[in-house]
């Protein structure tokens, strides 16, 4: 059974500056990210920051991330080392980007645009862009040796990788230029360059989206281009940085078909994009202590129940058989990952009895992961 991922070697490697935990929702990504960050700080003396997206309330509390000011705050109660933690505030990050790239008047204008309000708070994908932006900021500050990143709970974990490219496509696309060009004041004859299909395009979009919305979008994109055209460059730089040796991607999964399929798919994408995939962490295996097969336990339970249907030992044996069968089924599901991605080292973790809500819990979790 594969259990060959050396997390301590990875966390202590001074050449690694970013560890990104990715995977589908509900597999324990945030807990894993926080636990690894804590271990990097306490055990390996690295000045670490963990950037989380949507932590459980009590975990956030214990990491001191309740002040929602969108900047990293030191975590109290460490056994040595230095760890900061923050929770991403997507809207605030977007606002900061706008504010830092334009005059106060212009920023106020952008903030008031209904399209900006929609994009910055509800647009699917904004969270990914902003996680990327924040990661770029944290890297650039040079305050930390190691940044541990919890990726957003995307509809598909891949959105995170695709976000910068989509952003670039959005800002640089022909469509956006067309829209910018049709903003009052900067009207150029883009339509003639693009011919009839562009005419169809504007006509249809005016009708479908309503002229009002189109004007909002056009104004917003025009101001984007004027004020922070560097958006795309930064997103690309962050994407390239993620490809370098300084980064480690860890895929987090749980032993369920959907989560394993996502993990396989994600691992393949990372490899295709030449992103450094360093390991897979399999969470939530049913813990089994007794080395007794489910079949023998069930047989014995049946024998005991012949005398007493409520035999307490039979109940204990059935409990064990249930757990053993659950674990066997989980391992069969997990084996798909090993078959699809034989070169990716794995760490396997039993489900912890209680929810991880404090530093002690994170410490135990990390210790189990590091083996």
């Amino acid at each position, binding site marked *: 059974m594969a259990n060959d991922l050396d997390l301590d070697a990875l966390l202590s490697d001074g050449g690694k500056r970013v560890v990104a935990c990715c995977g589908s929702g509900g597999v324990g990504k945030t807990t894993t990210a926080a636990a690894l960050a804590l271990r990097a700080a306490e055990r390996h003396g690295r000045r670490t920051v963990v950037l989380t997206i949507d932590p459980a309330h009590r975990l956030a509390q214990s990491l001191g991330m309740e002040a929602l000011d969108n900047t990293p705050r030191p975590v109290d109660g460490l056994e040595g080392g230095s760890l900061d933690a923050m929770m991403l505030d997507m809207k605030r990050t977007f606002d900061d980007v706008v504010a830092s790239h334009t005059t106060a008047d212009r920023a106020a204008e952008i903030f008031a645009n209904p399209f900006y309000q929609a994009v910055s708070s*509800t647009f699917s994908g904004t969270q990914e862009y902003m996680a990327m932006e924040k990661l770029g900021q944290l890297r650039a500050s040079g305050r930390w040796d190691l940044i541990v990143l919890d990726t957003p709970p995307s509809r*598909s974990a891949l959105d995170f990788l695709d976000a910068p490219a989509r952003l670039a*496509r959005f800002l640089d696309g*022909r469509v956006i230029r067309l829209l910018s060009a049709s903003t009052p004041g900067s009207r150029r004859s883009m339509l003639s360059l693009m011919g009839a299909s562009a005419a169809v395009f504007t006509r249809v979009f005016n009708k479908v989206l*309503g002229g*009002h919305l189109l004007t909002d979008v056009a104004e917003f994109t025009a101001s984007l281009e004027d004020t922070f055209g560097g958006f795309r460059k930064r997103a690309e730089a962050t994407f390239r940085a993620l490809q370098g040796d300084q980064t480690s991607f860890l895929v987090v999964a749980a032993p369920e078909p*959907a989560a394993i399929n996502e993990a396989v798919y994600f691992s393949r994408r990372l490899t295709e994009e030449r992103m450094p995939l360093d390991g897979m962490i399999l969470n939530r295996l049913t813990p089994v202590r007794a080395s007794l097969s489910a079949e023998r336990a069930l*047989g014995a339970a049946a024998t005991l129940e012949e005398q007493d249907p409520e035999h*307490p030992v039979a109940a204990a044996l059935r*409990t064990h058989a249930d757990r053993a069968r659950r674990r066997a089924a989980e391992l069969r599901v997990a084996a798909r990952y090993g078959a699809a991605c034989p070169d990716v080292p794995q760490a396997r973790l039993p489900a912890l009895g209680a929810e991880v809500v404090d530093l002690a819990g994170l410490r135990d979790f990390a210790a189990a992961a590091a083996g």
Partner: protein
Amino acid sequence: MSAIAPPVPRLHIVTGKGGTGKTTVAAALALALAGPGRRVLLAEVEGRQGIAPLFDAPSLPYAERRLAAGLDGGEVFGQAVDAEEALLDYLTMFYKLGSAGRALRKFGAIDFATTIAPGLRDILLTGKLKEAVSRTEADRMAYDAVVLDAPPTGRVVKFLNVTVESGRLAKTGPIGKHSRSVARLLHSSLTAVHLVTTPAAMPVQETVDAHRDLLAADLPVGHVVFNKVAGTKTVDVTAEELREGLRRTGLPSDEDLVAALLEEHAASRVETEAVDSYRDRLERLGRPIEELALLPEGVDLSGLYQLARRLRPSLRGPRRAAPGTDAEGADRGE
């Protein structure tokens, strides 16, 4: 308010935290709803292709396809709704765009529209569902029910409420008008949003939060599905009894094995107690709770039918929509 019970929900939206099994529950629900002579559509909207593997079927296309026989002879159809295809559909429907539609796609406009226009993607997806719910074929409803494997709890209110939002943004034009009609359906008693959770802290918390947010957004909440509940007997057993029992049945009875079994037994008891406290918490929401047992070997096709049979009684009501006598609808009757 009204003396007449609200109509039977025909659009079932199944949500839950990631990993709680909402796709499985949506599939089981679709099978359960597909009673004799009934046609049910099971749709997904996130491009995950989560439905097909449950039925051992190849990936679902955008076009609806027969997927399985329901319980007792109905039919379940499957569909993976895709925003780009839906937009083209929409343009074709309203603007008779033949080749121009394809030109738009080549031009990147479709990509642009579905990626950028705020919520347009979600509007198109929910719009497509509304179309499936209200479509008629040969004087009867094309589908007796539509079940959606919806986005997870964290995003579902935004997803369902986007039509309200866009009704505000797009004040003119068909998107605005269309949004408002979809919003009416989603906020009516023809819709039920079911919340799936497992016995664990985060999923239960998200269920409670989603319940609150759905009510605040005036969206109709249906059942709470308490999924993957491991049923273990919690009897007391001592090391002495264990040793004796093991010996009597010819199993090894060394201290290691006895200690290990006791430890597992204790861990299961802690889990069972936790399950009870989560159940209490869910009961306080005041919604009907459907409990589904954990299938130790995972869910295969026969397991799916097993879950469907378990869900069946909670859906009792008239076979064909005849408002006024429906138990499920009455659950929400104000």
